[in-house]
């Protein structure tokens, strides 16, 4: 960086990803570029979705924000601070279930606060609040083996939110759920967005999910992953509507969906065969 003065535009961005690239060394000695020169900002209270076909590196971008992967090039800043590793300020929710089997729902939700030395009384009160938010009051003393998939994801959401992260990272959080449960969970997330107004960066390959949930959609290309389009879901006029049916009926929804489907098809590896 010698000679170049780090002049970063002081925007009000919560998360700032600038010129980030990531390449992996394969076992055969080749270098694969997973992500190339990705730049974007996420504003405070914004729900931003990284959308794209599988293999577009969207999860890699999310994992770099989490600090679980290091970028080969570029930098990532959260609240003006360089991201150098994983930390409690960037709570992550995975597609696979991550409830700790040996802890009850209550203990799972208290887990992060316990790590960070939150005193017992406050820990309990905060856990109660978030357990109610995800509607698991009746199951607070249950073990995860007694819960359904959707309930396990509720535990994960409550556990992450109770830890009070600066940004919530979600990696296809509802991808393993059946269609009906996914829908319910998406609406629950919208209710949470309204009441807590967290900043969220979410990875998904589900077009409907992205349009319903996101304020902004970053569409990524395949191999290597770049950002192709930065789309605002303006047709929602800045509202967070916790009713999926209502959103799909809004004017502009169909146009946006068609536009994204078109891009998805262009990025599809099966494109030649279909044409």
């Amino acid at each position, binding site marked *: 960086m010698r000679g170049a003065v780090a002049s970063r535009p002081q925007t009000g961005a919560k998360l700032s990803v600038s010129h980030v690239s990531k390449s992996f060394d394969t076992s055969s000695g080749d270098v694969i570029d997973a992500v190339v020169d990705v730049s974007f900002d996420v504003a405070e209270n914004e729900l931003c979705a990284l959308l794209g076909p599988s293999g577009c590196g969207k999860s890699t971008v999310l994992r770099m924000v*989490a*600090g*679980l992967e290091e970028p080969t090039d570029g930098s990532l800043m959260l609240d003006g601070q360089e991201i150098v590793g*994983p*930390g*409690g*300020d*960037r*709570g*992550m929710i*995975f597609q*696979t279930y*991550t409830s*700790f*089997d*040996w802890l009850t729902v209550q203990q799972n939700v208290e*887990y*992060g606060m*316990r*790590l*960070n030395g939150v005193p017992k009384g406050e820990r309990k009160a905060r856990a109660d609040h978030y357990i109610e938010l995800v509607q698991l009051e009746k199951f607070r003393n249950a*073990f*995860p*083996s007694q819960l359904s998939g959707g309930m396990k994801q509720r535990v*994960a959401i409550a*556990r*992450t939110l109770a*830890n009070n*992260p600066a940004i919530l*990272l979600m990696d296809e959080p509802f991808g393993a759920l059946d269609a009906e449960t996914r829908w319910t969970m998406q609406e629950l997330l919208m209710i949470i967005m309204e009441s807590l107004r967290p900043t969220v960066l979410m990875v998904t390959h589900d077009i409907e999910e992205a349009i319903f949930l996101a304020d902004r959609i970053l569409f990524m290309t395949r191999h290597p992953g770049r950002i192709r389009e930065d789309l605002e879901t303006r047709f929602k006029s800045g509202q967070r509507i916790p009713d999926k049916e209502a959103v799909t009926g809004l004017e502009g929804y169909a146009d946006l969906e068609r536009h994204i489907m078109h891009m998805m098809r262009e990025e599809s590896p099966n494109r030649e065969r279909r044409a």
Partner: protein
Amino acid sequence: MRRQRWLEFKRPIPRRATVALGVAVWVIFFALWEFAVAQAWVNAKFMPPPHVVVGTLYEMLAGGAFVVDIGISIYRIFLSFALACLIAVPLGILMGSFRRVEAFFNPLVSAWRYLPAPSFIPLLLMWFGTGDTQKIALLFIGVLWFLITIIMDHVKAVRAELIETSMTLGGSRWQILRTVVVPAAMPNIVVAMRQMLAVSWTYLVIAEIVAATTGIGAVMMRAKRFLHVDQIMASIIVIGLLGLLFDYLFRLTHRRMFRYLDERER
């Protein structure tokens, strides 16, 4: 309704039937044995009938000396196994968690796994004589290396997402080890301990039939010298029963410790 046949593919059977069939196989086994001796198909001197063996077992236990030998054998098993666990559990956990620790220890551990423990008996006899120390040393090296490897593999199988979840909640390496890796691997570690305890009993007999004066194995070797086949058989029964008992106790402990597990995972 379709006729219930006696044998059906994969059809569960009532619990009472399971117990009755399990008892029946033993009753038939002993009945055949008795019958074979009574018919003089086998020489009663080398193959005494079950009722004689049971009688001998009762006499041996009532005599008291055999009980002391049983106690000595159990003591050897326990001490050697506790020592092996004391090293294998922490080392296996560290090797399974950190690649550098694995890269350092694994060449040593793998090599030792392929050296048959009984081949060390001559060495151990020279170093420690014929007492408890030599027996315990043999049991220890017989179990240790396998235990380390199995525990390492179970720790490696802990899902990365669980560890990463803790990382993104602010967990330090030590906290993650203590609050995620250890509890996640613990049910399987206890299973590994149960399996290796069974192996321990095998090495016990080997240790006690070579240059030993005490323990169940030594009792058997003494009985052999005087052609007391009934005593040898009674000893074998005791070893079998003790093995079963400890296995059962381990199973019970596992169930108590890990109540949170799904019935299917047990």
